[in-house]
């Protein structure tokens, strides 16, 4: 069987599906993160706001998803003007920490569920209620069907459905991370070593600088993969900046199976190649 012809046929068929044609999509509601560099990219790709957006942690943060929570707290500022439902399974989300990223706690409704399935159910209910402006769900195992249902509900509601992936073990993370799901964007975020840090060993550890993350747009419907270094200064509570990482382009076209195996190495290579600041 000729894979190339199959691919061409597939592309043709996909082009016929009306919902996926860029021109048929309602203009206006586009996902934004509050940083110019990333938002330009998202605007060009016309990433719809009303869709599933997945955020997953990296490098030891798979379990806590704390970097992802920071990123979500930042993006909710610019994507949600009304009520927000945040559905969790572990009672460890800390409100003062969220507020430090400029999220208005008065608009936040916290929901605790016991299982992944319950999180998905609650997300769907929240999306269908039409009384919220964004929903966030912390979910581990997610089936393709469950994500499709959420994607449909988010499309109809026209509000973002953020999935913050949290995996209990590294094995689970390794197995679940590359699984395909229905999502408009799939982000990977990991803490970034502060680049202003001198490498020599001082007598006492140096001070922490502003928080930095490496943010990868791993899958995006109308765009290739891209990476940024994102910085947020707690002292200056409003400012968040992002600088694109050039090397990620070379890593953009990885197949899923290769990506899952080569990810840690590729990540390290990218970090080594890139010296920021």
């Amino acid at each position, binding site marked *: 069987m000729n894979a190339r012809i199959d691919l061409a046929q597939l592309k043709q068929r996909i082009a016929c599906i009306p919902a996926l044609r860029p021109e048929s999509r309602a203009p206006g509601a586009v996902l934004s993160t509050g940083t110019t560099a990333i938002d330009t990219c998202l605007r060009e790709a016309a990433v719809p706001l009303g869709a599933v957006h997945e955020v997953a942690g990296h490098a030891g943060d798979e379990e806590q998803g*704390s970097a992802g929570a920071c990123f979500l707290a930042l993006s909710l500022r610019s994507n949600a003007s009304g009520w927000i439902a945040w559905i969790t399974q572990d009672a460890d989300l*800390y409100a003062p920490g969220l507020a430090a990223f400029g999220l208005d706690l008065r608009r936040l409704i916290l929901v605790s569920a016991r299982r992944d399935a319950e999180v998905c159910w609650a997300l769907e209910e*929240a999306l269908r209620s039409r009384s*919220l402006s964004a929903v966030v769900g912390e979910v581990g195992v997610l089936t393709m069907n469950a994500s499709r249902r959420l994607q449909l509900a988010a499309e109809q509601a026209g509000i973002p459905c953020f999935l913050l992936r949290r995996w209990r073990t590294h094995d689970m993370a390794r197995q679940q991370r590359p699984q395909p799901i229905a999502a408009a964007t799939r982000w990977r975020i990991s803490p970034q070593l502060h680049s202003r840090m001198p490498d020599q060993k001082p007598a006492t550890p140096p001070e922490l600088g502003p928080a930095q993350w490496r943010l990868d747009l791993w899958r995006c419907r109308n765009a290739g993969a891209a990476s940024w270094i994102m910085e947020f200064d707690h002292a200056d509570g409003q400012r968040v900046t992002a600088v694109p990482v050039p090397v990620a382009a070379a890593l953009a076209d990885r197949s899923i199976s290769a990506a899952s195996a080569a990810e840690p190495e590729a990540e390290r290579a990218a970090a080594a190649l890139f010296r920021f600041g």
Partner: protein
Amino acid sequence: MAVQVGNRLEIGAANPAARALGLKPGVAVADARAWVPQVIVLPLDPEADAADLERLADWATRFSPLVAIDGTDGLMLDIAGCAHLWGSEARMLADLDRHMRRFGLHYRAAIADTIGAAWGGAHYSTGTRQVMPSGQQKAALADLPPAALRLPEELCAQLQRLGLKRVADLCALPRAALARRFGAVLMNRLDQALGGQDETMSPLLPPPQCYVRMDFAEPVAQRAGIDRALHLLLKRLTEALRPHDSGPRKLDLSCYRVDGETQRLTIGTARASLDAAHLFRLFEEKLDQLRPEDGFEAMRLSGLEMERLTTQQHDLEAGGAIRHDLAPLIDRLTNRLGEAAVHRVETRESHIPERAVRRLPPLAESPRLHWPKASQRPIRLLPHPEPIEAVAPIPDDPPVRFRWRHVLHKVRAAEGPERIAPEWWLPGDQDAEIRDYYRVEDSEGRRFWLYRAGLYQTTAAPRWYMHGMFG
């Protein structure tokens, strides 16, 4: 039914056939076997009996919402305003009889104006079923023994010795003499039975403020039928309440099964609601829990916790969003996930991280927000601080490395300490320790919130804890 008393086996309860043969409670099982060789002796199980009585009480709510358990073998129902649903009190009693026969239960029942008269009638009258005409308690009780007045045993024996064998004999005596001779108990009980003194009962379930019920000609077992009945009940309840401008915060659906079991479903709402479609959706989630088996013969829908209906409120803080619109979603979530699962937060003036956040009900008025802005707080806070192995070279320094959940972290950068003292003026905090918090970054760039418990001591190794994660 046999019961062990001391080291002999006695009859604890007997059916009418056995009692007719003289096998009364208190007779030794050995004697009973000698008199009537074919007697069947079973062990008495008071706990199972009590459980069965409770189930029967549950079932009896089909007659009236006010049901109380009386002693170990009786039920009390307040049927004021309920009997007309059956046509008359006698027909209600006939319906009870039909059910009791089907359950195979021996029973005695009486309907009267007062609790005392009904009790006496049920326990001591000659017939098994009796409706005492209103206001005729004195005549109805006249021929019954004084024990029918719910008197203590010694008092009954005393009256018996004096030849006062009927209630009528007591009534014939002057009140003052009775009271002096036998005390206030007798007078109270007499007045309660005859209606001179009010008596209240304490029902098992709180009385609903409003309810609607529906009896089915044929038992309903199919889901479609149950759905339809619930639709109608909700419609009737909401229509009845609309003119009063109030609605229930809680609804209870009781389904009475043909075999006498009662099944209940309860839903709650964040705001009083008369939206029948919304209320139906809340019930819909739970209807699968019903086990109709052979079908339900009646259903009752009660509204509890009435509240005034509020008009829609515009909440300007939430970007003009209408908070009222949230209520249906919150109801759906709480009904499936539990009351405590949905909440909002407010921050309080406390430096203790766990205490700085307080849960609020989801539709609470605007929460107050206050937190120490100057100091950074993590985005994740562990519900319980977890002990870690940490190595810190100098007393007041952050650790250079630590092990948490089996993973070794090397500290690359750190800030601190931020000293947080316990709130010693609070009762639980007198023995709490000072915590020195550090923000540290490991070699992967992850940032943690650690603390050392207590002041540094030369004698004991310092104890370190992991408390939270920054991004």
